[in-house]
């Protein structure tokens, strides 16, 4: 990516924004313009709302948006995992029907993978989909489904064949969450928020055209979704900040943040809020303490190396190198950073960190870090699973002996 092309692209987007950016439009009107122009997701294919530009160009383009306070497409949350999966495995019908509305923010998505009986062992899913000659009929229970209570659609992994080995009997569907057979209940988390849900599915239907990829190919498709999740493609690390600007379109954006994005409001805290550490250490004077300094230094080094590793991965991606293990590595790095950060915040705040709400350090934000951090090592595949992946796929170490080969119906599993 030469400076020449970067400058040319920046110039082009600047000119386009000058011509088109209009805070008087409605959010959806504006985002439709973005979709049509390709400037909303410039890294997507030209044929589908993008401009085939390298990912590394995105920050440069975002700079131009920020320059004129232009609103972007809706690009955080499970919707981006849905988009990535559909771009890779969906057919043209899926792309036509869903991608645009994902970008405009009109539709919200959730990921119906984990179940009470199978989380890490995703291929052990027992939610079933049976074809009745006309439609797929879905029955079962999903758990930990983030955003299901707002979602219009779900990425559903269900079993369609019980007589083949577990990985071969799964199929991937797009489930309409607004139908009567889908019953969603929020589940309260240890940090007091309730961003995930239980989803009871009883005779819900999926029309045949909403199957993604082949029957029995569900595992392969799910791997795409998970790879993007691990790569942090869910955009959670760039949660929409409140522009603070007056005007109808910003008002609409704020409303979006307050509603559909509400489940993610604690996500920065679960990552450990490394950004607050130096400032807090200086404010409290704890920066003077030798052992606190050492722990802060360790944290900053961990967090820097995670950042550089992510940038290296992105650079490799751009050079067209095959996607490696960076997702697993990045997840483990993030989980270590979060844990260390929680320790450091405790050291800095002392007893203050115990108090929640307005009595606590930074109005309870620090306490929220402490009770949110454990999620990072679980959500999106636990640390242990990431280590297995690295050992087996990267280092090429032999798999453990397993007890779940053969037809799935005979595999020992949880009774739920």
């Amino acid at each position, binding site marked *: 990516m030469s400076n020449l092309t970067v400058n040319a692209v920046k110039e082009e987007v600047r000119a386009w924004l000058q011509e088109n950016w209009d805070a008087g439009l409605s959010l959806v009107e504006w985002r439709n313009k973005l979709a049509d122009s390709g400037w909303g997701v410039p890294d997507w294919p030209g044929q589908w709302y993008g401009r085939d530009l390298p990912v590394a160009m995105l920050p440069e383009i975002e700079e131009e948006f920020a320059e004129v306070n232009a609103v972007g497409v809706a690009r955080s949350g499970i919707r981006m995992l849905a988009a990535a999966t559909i771009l890779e495995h969906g057919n043209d019908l899926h792309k036509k029907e869903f991608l645009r509305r994902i970008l405009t923010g009109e539709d919200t998505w959730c990921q119906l993978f984990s179940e009470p009986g199978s989380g890490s062992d995703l291929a052990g899913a027992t939610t079933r989909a049976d074809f009745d000659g006309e439609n797929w009929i879905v029955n079962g229970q999903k758990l930990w489904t983030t955003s299901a209570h707002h979602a219009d659609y779900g990425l559903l992994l269900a079993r369609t064949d019980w007589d083949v080995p577990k990985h071969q009997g799964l199929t991937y569907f797009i489930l309409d969450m607004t139908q009567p057979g889908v019953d969603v209940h929020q589940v309260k988390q240890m940090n007091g928020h309730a961003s995930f849900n239980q989803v009871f599915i009883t005779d819900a239907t999926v029309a045949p055209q909403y199957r993604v990829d082949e029957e029995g190919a569900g595992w392969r498709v799910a791997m795409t979704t998970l790879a993007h999740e691990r790569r942090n493609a869910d955009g959670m690390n760039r949660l929409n900040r409140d522009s603070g600007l007056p005007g109808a379109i910003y008002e609409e954006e704020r409303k979006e943040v307050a509603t559909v994005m509400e489940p993610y409001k604690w996500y920065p805290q679960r990552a450990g809020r490394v950004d607050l550490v130096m400032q807090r250490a200086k404010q409290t004077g704890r920066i003077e303490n030798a052992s606190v*300094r050492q722990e802060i*230094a360790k944290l*900053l*080094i961990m967090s*820097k190396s*995670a950042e550089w590793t992510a940038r290296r991965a992105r650079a490799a991606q751009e050079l067209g190198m095959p996607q490696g293990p960076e997702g697993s590595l990045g997840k483990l790095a993030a989980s270590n950073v979060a844990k260390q950060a929680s320790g450091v915040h405790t050291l800095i705040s002392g007893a203050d960190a115990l108090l929640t709400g307005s009595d606590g350090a930074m109005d309870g934000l620090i306490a929220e870090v402490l009770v949110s951090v454990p999620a990072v090592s679980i959500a999106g595949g636990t640390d242990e699973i990431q280590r*297995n992946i*690295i050992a087996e796929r*990267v*280092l090429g170490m032999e798999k453990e002996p397993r007890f779940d080969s053969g037809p799935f119906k005979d595999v020992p599993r949880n009774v739920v």
Partner: protein
Amino acid sequence: MNFEFSEEQNLLREQASGFLKDHCSTKVVRKILDGDESYDQELWTKVVEMGWTATVIPEEYDGLGMSYLELCVIAEELGRSLAPLPFSSSVYLATEALLVAGSKEQKEEWLPKLASGSIIGCLAAGEGKGQVTPKSLTTSADASSLSGSKLPVADGDIADFAVVFAACDSGDGASTYLVDLNQSSVSRQKLDTIDPSRSHAKIDFAGASAELLGKEGEGWALLNNIYDRAAVLFAWEQVGGAETALEMAKDYAMGRFAFGRPIATYQAIKHKLANMYVKNTLAKSNCYYGAWALSTNAPELPIAAATARVGAIQAYYFASKENIQTHGGMGFTWEFDCQFPYRRSKLLSINIGSEPVWQEKLIKAIETGRAA
């Protein structure tokens, strides 16, 4: 910023790694560890012939005038092969000191010889007890004569000259001198250390003739600058060594059976190796950052050097100790090679300042608002 080396740099790597595989097997390391020699002279001669000692020395001083990225590539491969050579002393420390602070005459005198490998340099800062500071320095110099004791000095027993730090009353409290070690007022004594594959010595100066390097009273700043630069190069060596430890562990785990199956199939072993891999990879990312800062003389160098150094110390120690653990009882024998990376990791974790020192440097740099 680049996160990968260029095609030419990767070619250099292939060449270096092929060469070291042929000429620096662990047998060579073991020969130095077990024997009386301070370094492998045959290997040194070949390394010099390859031009590695001349890498970043400008062409006007008979060097190759390449960038620090090339030197990072070489450092990584030398670290990977655990080479028993005075390369780091002569190249990362002595050559750097001259490049950073040498006068034109000094450069003309010393750099061509360093490039051609006809002389070996070393750096003498520490005086044995604890972290050296300008206040703790007892070595002193007047006009042109220097007295005091330095230890441990890496390669001090075989080097031809030393870059020596001595107390002074002006400026930051230290000045730097070039001292010819082959003079009668210098005596040296080889020391036993935890890593006998890299030699160390105590050097006594009794009114040795010395020549000021850089300005009087700017020695401490110079030392810190040299350490920042060398930290990046050492970090590449350390990451190379850490990768060797992981390779060794992996090879052993795949071939060793316990309880009817390869130990590589046990998660306790898998996760150990996965953790090694994660630490190594993260540390390497910091090395790239450091390489970039070093090669562009970026103001971020102190921060980049500290992150590279601490990450590399941790990764190397972790990988080398877990490699021993993976080998079970065999790992604890003299016969097995597991001890080499472990010893080297310990040595390199303290040679130019240990973890807390660099952590403190990092915090200071961030506190005082130098670019983070």
